[in-house]
């Protein structure tokens, strides 16, 4: 006769199992209530029911086009958007990572500024599956979702003294941040592969 958990010749079915069940249930309930109490005000699950039409893509520079032609879409990338203090124009600073070939390319407004090995390429990855060109400066939340093609993500409000009117978002293989409702940071995160 096969035995299941909590069952033995000395511990017949139907006896002494309920304390375990009650205990586990209580612990789980307390954990969920605690987490909910600590973060529920700041965290919401966003479901996109009527996806906005995808906005226009960013124009790739000659450097970026050459990189795409040589290496393809990056496995991972990070893009920051902010205002250049001199030109007072939006600036785009991005890093594209290619783990397969151990290359990481940095661009400022499309021009290559550095190229080196990825710092954290300790394991093979599966590409995040997003394109840097899909994201443009100061997109709205809905536009980011449309550009990324995601229907569900989590929004976490950031404390004002960290970033005023800031929020970060977590979607599948995608992190992004908005300030005053406008995209200023997006990062495509690959999956790691254990061989």
């Amino acid at each position, binding site marked *: 006769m096969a035995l299941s958990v909590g069952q033995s010749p000395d511990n017949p079915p139907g006896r002494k199992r309920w304390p375990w069940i009650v205990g586990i249930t209580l612990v789980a309930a307390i954990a969920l209530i605690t987490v909910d109490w600590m973060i529920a005000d700041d965290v919401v699950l966003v479901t996109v029911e009527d996806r906005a039409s995808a906005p226009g893509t960013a124009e790739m520079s000659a450097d970026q086009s050459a990189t795409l032609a040589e290496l393809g879409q990056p496995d991972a990338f990070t893009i920051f958007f902010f205002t250049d203090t001199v030109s007072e124009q939006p600036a785009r600073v991005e890093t594209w990572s290619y783990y397969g070939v151990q290359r990481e390319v940095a661009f400022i407004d499309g021009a290559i500024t550095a190229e080196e090995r990825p710092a954290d390429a300790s394991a093979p990855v599966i590409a995040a599956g997003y394109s840097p060109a899909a994201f443009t400066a100061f997109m709205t939340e*809905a536009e980011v979702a449309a550009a990324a093609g995601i229907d569900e993500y*989590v929004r976490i409000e950031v404390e004002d003294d960290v970033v005023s009117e800031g929020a970060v978002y977590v979607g599948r293989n995608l992190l992004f941040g*908005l300030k005053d409702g406008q995209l200023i*940071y997006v990062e495509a995160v690959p999956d790691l592969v254990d061989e």
Partner: protein
Amino acid sequence: MAIRTNAAVISLLLLALTAQPVMADEGAPWDQEDVSPADAVALQAAAHRVTGLAEEGTEANEPEAVGQLWDLAVSMGVDEATADMIAAAQAESIKKAAEMKPRRRRGGGVFRWLFTRTPLKIVTKVTDPLYKLAGPRGRRIIRGMAPEIQDVALSALFAGASIKTALRALVRSRLKQVKRVVVEDTIDRLIARLQTRSRSGNTTQSTVSDSAYVFELTEEDFLPPADPSFGLGSFLWDEVSGDLGEDPFCQTLQLQIDAIEMRVIFDPVGETILASFDGSGEEIYREPAGNGVERGNDAVGDFTGELAARRVGTTPEGWHRYEGDSELAAEIHVTMYCTFWSDGELLVDEYTESGSRTADARVEILVIPESENSYNFSFSINSALSWTDDTFSSEPSVFFGGRTVPVDLAG
């Protein structure tokens, strides 16, 4: 082969357990207001904290701490390029600190995020009363600092300084160390550039005349050796600071100039390089002082200068070395104002200072012929700006740049 979904996705699932469904926010149109790079980096740090990515091999960067210190430095009137240096040094400190302690393990992103929002044990245990004095923002800033820097800040607090004064002293003390590090780093980079020669394509070649080839060095040429996401548009023109003397409401003046432009005229035929400096900038430093007092200043500066450099030799690598001395002239206009209220009546006190100052600059230029009509070019400058009179006093400051850029003489 197993696919291991990263912590971001795990955290997403965990977060979803407690989240409430809502509709997507349509957001607001871009209103053209300035967006600080610090905000973007801070959001990345927050996202990494939430998902646990901050502990997945990127501890050395600790972007939240670095970003906070950078933000603090800028809010205290330090120019962005210098803030980059501070942040870079902070990152290095954190890296060293991380190497001296066991690595934290992965997992539990949300809980770790929550736990890391509590004060560090070393702080609360040793200096709890002082820590409380720092206030919420001060505590947040101190928490983001490397342990050795926390000690400095807390020592200042212990001596009776306010949190802001303590941090200001801290940043200033760090500046001296950081500058030395950056200078050495720049020299190393310059040497590396000489050895490897930078790739072409980043130079704006603007004008070609009969005998001189003129190109502009962009702000990119003067970025410090730090994260390129910082410091766009800022040059290493140091702040000028000093006291305004007897005015009890305006004890501190900080002045920094951005947007200096530089133009270099390269004469490949002779052995002389001429350079002219022309630029202007504006920096506003405003420090609400509370108690009905508001103080600040607006400053606008213009810079001019010329350089004649002579060839002094050739390096073993084949670079022609040019050296020269120059005198930079700075014409700066400062409007200082202190606004305060008394019994509901608005009183305004305004003080204006205008004048010219000069700065000696030491310039080194390296040129290597790549082909008959193509040269590579590297430029560095060191300047000491001494600013003293009845109103101002300052320590000599230094700025520099280094870059190897190609010059196509074929036109």
